[in-house]
């Protein structure tokens, strides 16, 4: 069993009258227990040649209904460039230059084809990503 932790810090001194200072740490564990995830895709980078939709992770390649975790980062430095993220064909949102995201993924392939797809807004953009895999 491995121990992998994710810590998020949200901070702002001027979004509200009161300071925002949130810090949460989670240990990445398997579904329904405290066993640390032991598999990962490795930190990877994908350069997208054009603005076609790409399947980043196909649900059929992973165990259904598990506690996988997905990390994404748009490494572009051009503010207007984004990747549109879709899960199960539904647009989740856009990650612009420098943005990152971390979210759970069930890899559901029985009810809905829960692939994670990305669509870059411009040619030759690079996405950094890592999948923490629940067996």
């Amino acid at each position, binding site marked *: 069993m491995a121990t992998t*932790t994710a810590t998020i810090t949200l901070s702002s001194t001027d979004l509200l009258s009161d300071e925002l200072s949130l810090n949460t740490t989670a240990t990445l564990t398997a579904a329904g227990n405290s066993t640390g995830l032991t598999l990962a895709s490795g930190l990877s980078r994908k350069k997208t040649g054009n603005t076609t939709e790409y399947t980043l992770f196909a649900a059929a390649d992973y165990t259904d209904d598990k506690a996988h975790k997905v990390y994404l980062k748009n490494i572009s430095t051009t*503010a207007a460039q984004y990747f549109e993220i879709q899960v199960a064909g539904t647009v989740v949102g856009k990650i612009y230059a420098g943005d990152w*995201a971390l979210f759970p993924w*069930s890899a559901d392939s029985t009810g809905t084809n829960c692939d994670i797809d990305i669509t870059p807004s411009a040619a030759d953009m690079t996405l950094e990503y890592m999948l923490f895999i629940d067996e």
Partner: protein
Amino acid sequence: MATTTAAITLTSADLLTDALSLSATKTLHKAGSTVGLDQTTGMAKAYLTAVTQVDIFPPLIEGSIAFKGKTSWVYICNESEDETEYAVVKLSGNVIGKLYGGDFLWMPWSMAEDADADNKHADIQLTPSVATGMWFTWCCVNEGTEYPTSV
């Protein structure tokens, strides 16, 4: 303009042969710009006591034309200390994943309407796994919010 930053640190000494020590920090900007996000729902804390699916941002008109495609960021944390307790997270009725006790997510939200036109709009939905009570915290930091008209 406000300056709000979101930072992540992913660490592990034993997941891989090499140590994992990844950090990323980003100031939250409006879509396609370097102007800081200036609106938020504030941090909500909720105790959900049914296994009923709930829409966690009901004051917002999800999928509204005015704010579709604008930048919104969503934080959700399952504050349960029981690792067997989870909440199914859905977007427009499609399962994204399950947040188990102690897990959090940070994801963009474009408020894009469901292509199936089944009236789910761009709802972010939580369904707790138990009815014995689970604590959650969540917030949305965004660049625009259209509220329902009062009746």
